[in-house]
């Protein structure tokens, strides 16, 4: 059944309250709750065509993620949620046909990822990761506690956001000189990260896997796509960085959250077709 969530509530009584004017709805909810005892239900209301998801019994944390598999930004959130062992529901989006839920929970940017926790949406991947780290701070903290080290982590995550994705896009979407420039810039940025931010490792955070690692590791799943489009080897240019990435992949939170490199490559092919790029 196609999922068209419209209103999110987080307990049974909320559903009763907001739908009290529609008896059919209330009765249906009541019946579902009693007879089936199912933990999740959809109720279709005839007149307004809304579908309500009741999230209270679904998971103990009421966490939903609006997601697409190949998005590096969604991967950041998936890694963070996995690090914290948070149970959540994934709602996969078709970005060529954005859902009402996406447009309502992220009206400004209309992009994934969006995290919905207890009915409240949070968008922008690094903001979501910080939110997850602050709410579930007791488990595998991603930020160091020292304010200066925190500032360093934020600085490098901001650097990654500002510098990595522009050149990366040129590698798969451009040709000739522009593509070469993209490759060159991309490698330069990775070298800066290798040299200035990575230190002795094994992680950007030092001994512990942290915020900067989460910010960057999803890009590794796209390396195959970049290398194939750009006809170059990232490992040859940045062996230390690739070593870091392989280390991260040993963590289950990372290996289970990152998309398979073939998916990233297929996405590139799809996007090239979509944008009419050779």
């Amino acid at each position, binding site marked *: 059944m196609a999922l068209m969530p419209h209103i999110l509530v987080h307990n049974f009584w909320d559903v009763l309250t907001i739908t009290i004017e529609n008896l059919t709805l209330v009765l249906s909810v009541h019946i579902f709750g009693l007879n089936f005892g199912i933990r999740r239900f959809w109720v279709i209301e005839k007149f307004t065509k809304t579908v309500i998801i009741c999230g209270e019994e679904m998971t103990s944390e009421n966490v939903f993620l609006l997601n697409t598999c190949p998005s590096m930004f969604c991967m950041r959130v998936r890694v963070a949620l996995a690090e914290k062992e948070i149970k959540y529901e994934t709602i996969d989006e078709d970005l060529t046909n954005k859902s009402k839920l996406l447009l309502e929970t992220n009206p400004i940017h209309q992009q994934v990822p969006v995290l919905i926790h207890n009915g*409240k949406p*949070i968008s922008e991947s690094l903001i979501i990761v*910080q*939110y997850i780290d602050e709410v579930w701070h007791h488990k595998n903290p991603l930020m160091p506690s020292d304010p*200066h080290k925190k500032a360093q982590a934020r600085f490098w995550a901001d650097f990654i956001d500002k510098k990595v994705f522009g050149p990366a896009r040129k590698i798969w979407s451009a040709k000739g000189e522009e593509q070469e420039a993209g490759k060159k810039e991309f490698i330069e940025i990775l070298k800066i990260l290798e040299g200035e931010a990575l230190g002795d490792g094994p992680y950007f955070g030092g001994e512990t896997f942290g915020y900067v690692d989460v910010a960057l590791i999803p890009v590794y799943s796209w390396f195959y796509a970049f290398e194939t489009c750009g006809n170059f080897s990232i490992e040859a240019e940045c062996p230390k960085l690739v070593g870091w990435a392989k280390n991260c992949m040993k963590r289950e939170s990372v290996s289970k959250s990152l998309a398979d490199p073939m998916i990233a490559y297929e996405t590139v092919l799809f996007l090239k077709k979509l944008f009419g790029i050779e």
Partner: protein
Amino acid sequence: MAASTDVKVVGTRPSPFVNRVQFALNLKSIDYEFIPENLQAKSELLLKLNPVHKKVPVLVHGDKPVCESLVIVQYIDEAFPDGPSILPSDPYDRSIARFWAAYIDDKWFPAFRSLEYAKDEESRAEVLEKMSEGLVLLENAFVKCSNGKGYFGGDTLGYIDIALGCYLGWLKAIQIEFDLKLMDESKTPVLAKWAERFKNHEAVKGTLPETEELLNLMKVMKAAKAAAADAESEASK
């Protein structure tokens, strides 16, 4: 006033990004030494403190540098927990504050910045429309975040106030210089009132450059640009 905590700010007076850092320090009543920088001839100090971006502001606390204005503001909030909080304590409210600060820097300010490159009436009108739409969004955000109080942060200046308010000096100066309406009181009346309140806040007054100063600076920059263009055309003859 807090005891001297060995805090330095490397920056330029008219930079909104540098001003952000100053507002935050003022809010926390932290004494600091201002080290002016010449962006046309960057010092060894700046290149050493910010080798990655080579930009101002840089905050130096003890011997540790912190770069990027919003990173610095968050650092100040965490390193100096006494005094008013800049970010809210609730994680969801913090995410909202960060969201709008990111929107201001990633969407609204680049639109503002692009005014400089708008060569004709049409493209200028387009930019102004974008900026105006952004301010309407920010006005709605203000209503939600302020909870009926005077600032995005409620009773005191918060993260979004600092992130947006730093541009108010330049907004007014450019408004006057080019005879443009950049913040329309009819479209964003609540934000217009907030702007006045912000400019008069004790953590802002005396730090946010006065309109006169920025207008003079623009004259100087314009003259320097013209002189450089003349010199170039002379050299090519």
